[in-house]
């Protein structure tokens, strides 16, 4: 195998052969994807713990008695809509239509802020009804604790996303942002939506 050494120029260029990205994506996008994997697993840790504690519990409150479902549904709609506007913004940024991209990123950020506002009022209502980290008027205390922890962590992610989108808006307004950059910010935003897609049915519905 050592006798016939190909010169570098003659070597076949395989996807995994070095010198190219094996996934066909830049390292920025790759890193964002892998970051999303580890962040998703953090939520998986919370959700699995929730499943564990709920299975072990003797009783569990009926969520529709606790949560105003219309409001939660509205929040879910808002978050899904914000994902759609984000996808539109990424498409526009790739088409070099920076104005449209900016408008839709801004709409996304507003959607995120609305979602957060809904979350804050929901917390306020539940706290007024007597829910605390340590106690839960409707049954076992871990119910309230998991509620505050999971929605709190998801809300923090939304907040970070809104800030991120604000930065992207400014960059777009100055003509600095690239389609690639908007797409990476978009990945994060869609991820926040995906996490809600898990939390909403698993915590609020089932």
């Amino acid at each position, binding site marked *: 195998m050592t006798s016939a*050494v190909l*010169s570098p120029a003659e070597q076949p260029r395989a996807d995994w052969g070095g010198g*190219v990205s094996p996934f066909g994506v830049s*390292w920025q996008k*790759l890193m964002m994807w892998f970051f999303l*994997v580890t962040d998703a697993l953090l939520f998986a840790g919370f959700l699995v713990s929730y499943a564990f504690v709920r299975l*072990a519990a003797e009783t569990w409150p009926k969520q529709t008695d606790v949560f105003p479902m219309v409001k939660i549904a509205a929040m879910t709609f808002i978050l899904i809509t914000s994902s759609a506007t984000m996808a539109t913004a990424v498409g526009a940024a790739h088409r070099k239509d920076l104005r449209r991209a900016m408008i839709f990123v801004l709409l996304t950020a507003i959607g995120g802020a609305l979602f957060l506002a809904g979350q804050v009022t929901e917390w306020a209502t539940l706290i007024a009804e007597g829910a605390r*980290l*340590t106690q839960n008027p409707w049954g076992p205390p871990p119910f309230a604790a998991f509620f505050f922890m999971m929605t709190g962590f998801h809300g923090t992610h939304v907040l970070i996303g809104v800030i991120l989108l604000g930065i992207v808006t400014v960059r777009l307004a100055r003509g600095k942002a690239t389609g690639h950059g908007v797409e990476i910010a978009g990945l994060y935003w869609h991820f926040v939506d995906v996490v809600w897609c898990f939390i909403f049915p698993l915590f609020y519905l089932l």
Partner: protein
Amino acid sequence: MTTSPAPQAPRFPAPGHAAPAHAPAEVHAHHGPQSFWTRYVFSTDHKTIAKQYLFTAAFMSIFAVGWSMLIRLQLAYPHNTWPILSSLFPGLYQDGVLLPERYLSLTTMHGTVMVFFVISLALVSGFGNFIIPLQVGAHDMAYPFLNALSYWTIVPACLLMMVSFFVPDGAASAGWTAYPPLSALAEAGSGLGQTIWLLAMAPFIASFTMGGLNFVATILNMRTRGMSLMRMPLTIWTLFYASVLGILTFPALTAAAIMLLLDRLGGTSFFLPAGLIVSGQVLPHQGGTPLLFQHLFWFLGHPEVYVLALPAIGIAFDVLAAFGRRPSFGYRNTVWSILAVSALGMIAWGHHMFTSGMNPYLGEYFSIVTVLITLPFSVIAINLVASLWRAEIRLHTPMLFALGLIAAIGVGGLGGLWLGTATSDMYLQDSYFVVGHFHFMIGVVTGFGIFAGTYYWFPKMFGRMMNETLGRVHFWLTTLGTFAAFMGMHFLGMGGYLRRIYDPTTYRYAQHQPLNVFISYALLLAALGQVLFAVNLFWSLFRGKRAGANPWDATTLEWTTESPAGHNNWETLPTVSRGPYEYRTDNAPAGFHPQGEVEAAG
């Protein structure tokens, strides 16, 4: 051989992507930053960051070893008084006697700091940062700024850990595993130190995740032309799997740590069952279970063992090939075995919990998976040994440590069989057999990996060789000391001697005090060996023999650049046309083929 100056390939000829504007190759000018602060302190150069990690780990290890000496002193002479220690460490000793709760702090902090702030930092973050760009042929890590950020995130974590000794109630004392309810309840005796412990783990996890993302992105995306996956040196493979394991399993610990913190500070009951009674008081907690914490903790904890041990094994493979002057035995088998070990290691954590009240069917499953790991791990161990077959050994210090590592894997691995099987583990659980076993696997194996790597790459880091004589004495003191001590611990465990016991003479059945004294002296010997290492390190930094580009006649890419490697590693990236270990080939004039040839600039 023909080396035609191939046109520099665009880094990302990805479908449709214009190359990102800030690919790292363009970030760096061809000369490095000049001011002291940007060059040595807030540097984004992977080699400087690697040295920062390594020196931080060395600094932390002084404390971790020091604490272990205090622990061994207590275990060897539990009834003596040491007035001088009272004046030296007024928080730990009172009237010359080590406070029992501070003894637990010492074991906790020794474990935590050794695992997370010495071995992880040195082996994964330190050598990983140094060697990944050099061995895959990149100018720097994928995202140099994130790399610097990950180092500067670890600094407050280290400081927090150290500060926790000086708060009321002392440092964390719930063990490095931080099991609730002890770690969750202030009433049960875990004070502010435990909170700080948790808060210090947070930046550590963040830093390790950032580092891991960088490692994976660099290894996958930044390899130079011709560096196909099956041409990567085994160090790179092991660091890759270690990073992937870290990315996949650390989130579970993050979740557990957050919930534990809420239990401590917010009064929640994630890990606290109903009916806990502390000092006669029934606590209001209900609904949780400590078993959940154990699962989440060991979901990280077990893969963490591989995160630590695999890079050491990878370094040993590199060193064995270079100093045995023969290709590493069964390269492909090793690569796939490392994958199998990593994958199985992620679903085998329950063998740490056989006596926890876990569902016994689960225990049976975890037993089987754990014993299954033996298969790929044996392939790795056999390939290590077989890499010596017909080798022309050059017995330099790195090689000595690589050989010692093989021995330690043998001893530690055999002990693992006993502990991985539920039936025998029921007896050995939480005994000194366990302590001896994991000190072999994540103490001696990883430690020897770090030493082998340091002696091996020191010339590449600082342009000077380390002193051979001192190195050999260091090796023998370390090997004799640690092997005697940790093997002795296996016997103690067989005798039923439990870990985390303040006074070893408490139990009538435990009549092994002479062995305890012997272990303490053996470890003192090993610790003195480390003083020689420190002397060697600093002496060689300033007085060591100047090293050429390739002082060991090694094949991998890092030896094609000058020693110490310059700011961008190479002016023009080398191109790779061979496997990593082509030693002793017939037609090579020097007896070996370097993996890459540096293209003529232009």
